[in-house]
């Protein structure tokens, strides 16, 4: 089941404990939720902003609520999930720090995955091309991108430090495969962090 998942989702799925209660924030059409339900026996709930995605997720039998990570997380009770997951959504929120804060209030731990804006290819394109990078991991033009807060791995680590959160795990992906943490800020396309409040 996890074979067909996007690499960062497959990575998260491998690290979710069996039977856990999980909130997937920005769950899309529910691909990760379905995998966690079917292969990890998890009790999974989702939040998703796009109505067509919500309809698809509910149609596959998942409990998904249409809502906005920036405004609707406040309605979830404290500590109501083992894990809160935010995959590839952080960079689209208005206040990423507050969203992560909310994840750590709602879940005991939070998985956060995001595309690394400091990957060398992006740096190269900006440095020598003088244009905002448009590539496989950041496929949007600057004027119609949903990504309103471009973030690098080092930026993210700094935010974690400043808020006094703890990192329980960190994984890096390049070309869909796991890669080492040495110089991840330069060589990783995606990062997945497991945080604790």
């Amino acid at each position: 089941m996890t074979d067909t998942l996007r690499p960062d989702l497959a990575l998260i799925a491998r690290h979710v404990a069996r039977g856990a209660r999980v909130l997937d924030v920005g769950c899309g059409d529910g691909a990760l939720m379905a995998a966690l339900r079917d292969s990890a026996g998890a009790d999974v709930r989702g939040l998703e902003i796009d109505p067509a995605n919500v309809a698809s997720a509910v149609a596959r039998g998942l409990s998904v609520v249409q809502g906005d990570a920036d405004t609707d997380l406040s309605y979830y009770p404290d500590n109501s999930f083992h894990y809160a997951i935010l995959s590839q959504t952080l960079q689209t929120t208005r206040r990423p720090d507050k969203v992560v804060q909310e994840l750590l209030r709602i879940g005991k731990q939070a998985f956060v995955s995001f595309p690394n804006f400091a990957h060398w290819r992006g740096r190269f394109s900006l440095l020598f091309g003088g244009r905002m990078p448009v590539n496989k991991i950041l496929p949007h033009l600057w004027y119609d991108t949903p990504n309103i807060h471009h973030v690098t791995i080092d930026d993210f680590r700094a935010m974690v430090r400043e808020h006094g959160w703890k990192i329980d795990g960190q994984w890096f992906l390049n070309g869909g495969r796991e890669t080492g943490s040495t110089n991840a800020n330069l060589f990783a396309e995606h990062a997945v962090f497991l945080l604790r409040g």
Partner: protein
Amino acid sequence: MSVQSDIAAAATDQRFGLRRTVRLPGPLKLDGGGALAPVDIAYETYGSLNADGSNAILICHALTGDQFVASSHPVTGKPGWWTRAVGPDKPIDPDRHFIICANVLGSCLGSSGPASVDPVIGVPYAMRFPVITIADMVRAQAMLLDHLGVAKLEAVIGGSMGGMQALAWPTIFPDRVRGAIVIASTARHSAQNIAFHEVGRQAIMADPRWRGGNYYADGDAPAAGLAVARMAAHITYLSEAGLTEKFGRRLQGRDSKTFGFDADFQVESYLRHQGISFVERFDANSYLYITRATDYFDLAEDHDGSLALAFGRTRARFCLISFDTDWLYPTRESRNIVHALHAAGREASFVELASPFGHDAFLLEAPEMNRVIDGFLRAGE
């Protein structure tokens, strides 16, 4: 018993099928105090209950709806009001489900209401019929389920006022329902909702033919008042964009304004037609009672105003659907319910669907809604 004789027994069991009516002895205790006995319930069933009794679905109709959810209406001859969602290969499928739809208490299509004959004195109740609530409607439905031998519902489903019943069901009978689908509805009537209903009621009561509700003897009903009530209500079921698209400022069967008060505009003609055709199939007193029941609806009221507390005893899964142009029960009402369900730790899904048709969207072609209903039901099967 063999399977064949089971089927034969089911086929001849007079409790099941189209256009059924049952007189239950009651008494049905009412929220307003007092009790109703006997209780007549008119209903239809489609499909058959499976061996473990796990496939029963109760459909709750809206304010002026009826039990003819997927069969033709005996007065108007029109097809069932929800054939887009109920039928073979639809999300609610008689081949898979045992489907029940009953005329609500207080209505006029065969269930006990103000037009019913009071057995004590042999004339219609009229305004002596007790004021009823959404919860009373739900308890009457539960009495019908007892009669049909249905212990537990796979799901209760309804739109608008039917959604109020679907929402109330798991709070009143937490052990009798596994799923609730609440469409274009609300957990309480707002001041604006009550205000529109009051306009309708005053239109009926201002009609000199209403006569304190005693119009049954000569059959001279307050049709003009009821028609105006329906016209006002009908506007709330549509959206401004929908009306503009359908009618704009186009004139009705004429090239120029008449400088008079005929139905110059198409929208006037349309509303008049809605009002006139409504009075043929609906009782004015029933309209008073049922609008009152929805005005009194506030699920949080008995729980210190906390909707989350109201869901405290529920065990059902919930699915909420709203429509973006519905200003009668706008999306924020559904969101409010979802937040309360989450606070109560309940399993809930919610989606706002796009439609130009306003509140009535749930009765129209809505493939996304069907997809959501189908997925939600199958996940519980």
